């Protein structure tokens, strides 16, 4: 890690009508920070503010110690003068220019002559394995090719900061994996900080060194992918990483859940308000109440839905507490599980992950999954 100020340091406040984005974001050189959040959470607004396309209504942004935007002093470096590369969700390749001239655009407008700019562009295209496409028009490119060209165009301007807005969302599933692997390589080569906006948790887990979760214009969680995947701070994050999440009050070895019900939990040092995460596959389903068992948590619930997820069936259960539970298709057949059926759920205390609210603004809702 480099000293403070070397990377991106942003205190962003942007107001748009009734919506306010207020987020504190830092990214070190060489670090890929994924900004994850539902639609309308302010992810794109954040990128737009860092790029200088949206002025701040409060806060400041600095990159490598240089102030780009400061609402208090009125400093505002125009987008054209920020050393920022932006890959847009819809790529925005100029339709009237060839692939080569698209990539040459930034070196050209930043002062190089036509021939040297094209040379720089050709080098980037070669590096990205796109040399064959140089003469094509953007309209003649596939989605994956257009994405690569957009990345090349952003990098050709030699930016100090890279911004990627949902770079893979416009691709079909098969292309996405290829481009994702390639993107990961290029991001590893990039020396500056990188902000990657996405709503795909897998993309974030694969590509990012650190995650930042935005909801309703606020940062609700920040941490490494492993931390976030294990201890989601909100229901939105829990759903993304596929966990049941409950809020409750810890009282010794017992957590009383806000939404009804309680859990016996392993030893922990948390007191008061806590979160409990539970993997859907760690819950056991039985048709009768288990009589003798080492399992500490047993409760009745009603099946409200069944969904087949390739190799397993996800049950939607209502009870105290409600839960998502994964079972094998064989178990569904053997136990004769169906919607409306009453079953017993059990979960070992050791399967419960208990932790305090990492962030004061963290919890949004109640205990419904």
């Amino acid at each position: 890690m480099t000293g403070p100020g070397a990377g991106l340091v942003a205190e962003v406040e942007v107001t748009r009508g009734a919506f306010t984005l207020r987020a504190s974001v830092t990214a070190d050189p060489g670090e890929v920070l994924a900004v994850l959040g539902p639609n309308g959470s302010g992810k794109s607004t954040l990128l737009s503010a860092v790029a200088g396309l949206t002025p701040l209504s409060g806060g400041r942004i600095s990159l490598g110690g240089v102030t780009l935007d400061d609402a208090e002093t009125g400093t505002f470096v125009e987008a054209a003068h920020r050393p920022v590369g932006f890959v847009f969700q819809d790529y925005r390749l100029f339709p009237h220019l060839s692939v080569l001239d698209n990539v040459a655009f930034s070196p050209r407008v930043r002062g190089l002559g036509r021939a040297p700019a094209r040379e720089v562009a050709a080098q980037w295209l070669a590096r990205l394995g796109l040399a064959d496409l140089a003469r094509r028009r953007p309209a003649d490119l596939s989605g994956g090719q257009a994405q690569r060209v957009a990345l090349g165009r952003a990098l050709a301007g030699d930016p100090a900061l890279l911004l990627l807005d949902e770079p893979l969302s416009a691709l079909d599933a098969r292309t996405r994996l290829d481009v994702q692997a390639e993107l990961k390589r290029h991001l590893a080569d990039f020396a500056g900080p990188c902000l990657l906006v996405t709503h795909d948790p897998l993309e974030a887990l694969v590509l990012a060194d650190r995650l930042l979760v935005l909801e309703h214009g606020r940062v609700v969680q920040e941490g490494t992918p492993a931390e976030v995947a294990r201890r989601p701070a909100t229901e939105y994050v829990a759903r993304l990483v596929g966990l049941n999440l409950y809020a409750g009050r810890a009282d010794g070895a017992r957590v009383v859940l806000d939404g009804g019900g309680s859990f016996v939990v392993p030893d922990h040092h948390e007191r008061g308000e806590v979160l409990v995460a539970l993997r859907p596959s760690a819950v056991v389903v039985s048709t009768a109440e288990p009589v003798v068992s080492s399992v500490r948590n047993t409760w009745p619930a009603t099946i409200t839905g069944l969904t087949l997820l390739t190799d397993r069936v996800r049950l939607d259960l209502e009870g105290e507490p409600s839960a998502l539970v994964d079972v094998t298709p064989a178990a569904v057949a053997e136990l004769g599980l169906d919607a409306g059926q009453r079953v017993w759920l059990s979960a070992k205390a050791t399967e419960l992950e208990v932790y305090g609210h990492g962030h004061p603004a963290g919890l949004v809702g109640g205990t419904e999954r």
Partner: protein
Amino acid sequence: MAVAFLVIPLAGLLIRAPWGDAWEILHGSQAGEALKLSLWTSTVATAISLVVGVPLAWLLARTAFPGLRLVRALVTLPLVLPPVVGGVALLLAFGRNGFLGQFLDQWFGITIPFSPAAVVMAETFVAMPFLVVTVEGALRSADRGFEDAAATLGARRMTVFTRVTLPMVAPSLVAGAVLCWARALGEFGATITFAGSFPGRTQTMPIAVYYALETDPDAAILLSLVLLLVSVVVLVTLRDRWLRGGTAQ
């Protein structure tokens, strides 16, 4: 019905045309001079419209200033105004006794009315709105995202305009310019009011047709056919342009 109504008179032109003496008649009248005058004045009028009309279209499409709606209304006014009224207005403004013309005359000895410059002014007055309206519409519907993208790549505003915005609205720019040119070529009312009808100086093709109709109907028919031919060429050029634009993208 409607098609017949539009086509039959044009067919009549073709049938009544004195094809045999065409060459002599056209040479005998001042057709050549009128055509030359018409061509260069409408081209100059189009050039002026491009130079001042495109920035105006950009202002109307991309900025917000008090009175914007009023300016847009004023710009489109010549589209609905009878051209002869435009001619009278120009005369009142730039005529020898007009409120601007008198100063031009006193201070610089410049008299505009009844000169080729007056023809150009009359044509510009009537035709420029076609260009402004077409280009403004194109700018308005153009995707601003490309301009943002250009800005993040380091392009300043002027560069964004010349390298990204203009090329992207190019088809509409061409269409607007051709419409503008065709309108200028056909201009009659404002021109005859403001510039008069001096053969070789201010007598454009449409005016020549009008006068020839009284003295030499055959010449009028032939001159009309020349204008019809020019219109057809314009249509074909536009269509080609659009077709090529459609397939290239």
